[in-house]
């Protein structure tokens, strides 16, 4: 699988470490969220068969986190963006 890195161009997926669903960007607020919310965040997954937005870390490269859109049934990679941009677009400060 080749991941189209937004800065570095196409990179072999082997350079990356996979974390999981991009929803992990939306970590609950530790000061206000309850146990149930954190349980859902840490353990429960949508686990879709089809298009999946997921976090990949470019460990063997520029150490950036990407949000990769990939089809879990065919392994086709549909796009990649910097996780930082995705998080900021959702209102996160960093």
């Amino acid at each position: 699988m080749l991941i189209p890195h937004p800065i570095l161009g196409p990179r072999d997926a082997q350079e990356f470490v996979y974390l999981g669903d991009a929803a992990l960007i939306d970590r609950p607020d530790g000061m206000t969220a309850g146990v149930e919310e954190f349980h859902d965040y840490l353990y429960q997954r949508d686990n879709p068969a089809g298009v999946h937005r997921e976090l990949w870390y470019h460990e063997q490269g520029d150490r950036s986190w990407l949000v990769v859109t990939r089809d879990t049934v065919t392994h086709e990679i549909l796009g990649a963006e910097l996780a930082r941009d995705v998080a900021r677009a959702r209102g996160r400060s960093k």
Partner: protein
Amino acid sequence: MQYSGLRVIWEGLTGQKGWGPMWRDPAPKTTYDMVIIGGGGHGLSTAYYLAREHGITNIAVLEKGYLGGGNIGRNTTIVRANYFLPGNSEFYSHSLKLWEGLEQDLNYNVMHSQRGLINLFHSDGQRDAFVRRGNAMINQGDDAILLDREGVRRYLPYLDFDNTRFPIYGGLYHPRGGTARHDAVAWGYARGADQRGVDLIQNCEVTGIDIENGRVTGVQTTRGAIRAKKVGIVVAGRSSQVAAMAGMRLPIESHVLQAFVTEGLKPVIDHVVSFGMGHFYISQSDKGGLVFGGDLDFYASYAARGNLPMVEHVMEAGMALMPMIGKAKVLRSWGGIMDMSPDGSPMIDRTHVEGLYLNCGWNYGGFKAVPASGHCFAHLMATDRPHEAATGFRLDRFATGRGLMDEEGTGAQHNLH
């Protein structure tokens, strides 16, 4: 039809005309007492034990493809009971005992071969961990023998003992471990369930689960609606999709695990050899093919096939361990869809819906569990109480923090198993 040696001889003398199909191909009825979703190893064994142990025979097993077409037909066939933690230990011990009586019980040759399993270690620290694991296995009533380097050499003279990165210090020998013919396990359970009146319905995909007032009332399928008092979900890698029909999200990620087989060779590997540091394990099938596998590809996947980097990694690990296999030609490779749980252990439990039960989270180790998984799930569905060998497989353990079974000691986190 009972199978026996006499029967084989008689059919041989009379032109093989007496063999019939091993199970019927019934159309689904509109109502059953229980419906099992998933006609793989675990689903078929559940139906078998429901009929045999609990006398419940008005059951349908619904399979979207063909019987045994999923992970039961895609694994590396290893049977073992070498688990460490309470919760897992008693369960896999129970499973191995069922394996040991399985062929007589099913009247079916599943080619269960207790050829022994040897887990290798490569450092003093790892030896300590294996001593501890071996003691846990013995305490559970199973067998474990610690082998030093020369002990391993006696059994496995062909290994590269002086590998620079992972020199072999010894191994933990589990004589009752071994292999079985994976497809035959599914077929044996299917035949046994069918003989007891269970309807095995293929090409029947479940598209919805009917729930009224918090109670399951049946399922919608591609072959019509089926009403049932109790429904069991046993669908491995597809658990998230089927559970979603009942409004559930599961602590499951589906990943791909690859396996490989070479052309048939003369007998050369007499045991199951597990090389944990290289993520490599191997045995030789009765046809002669070397059957081996490695680690997950480590990304979510429903493709039932993996990518080349992991193929290369597995081949490298094999060559590091036993250079003699370098000239064997790989015949096939394939992948299975693994239902990975956060702590690497399964769930056999009730759900928030009355009459709806869940059996999933078998990670990359479901094959050896097939007998006990079905046995314990049948017990749960029939009596509404967990079987004593499977009390730890709670669905809510990630919420309560009670009874996490993190066998690998890496932490109960999705991307670490």
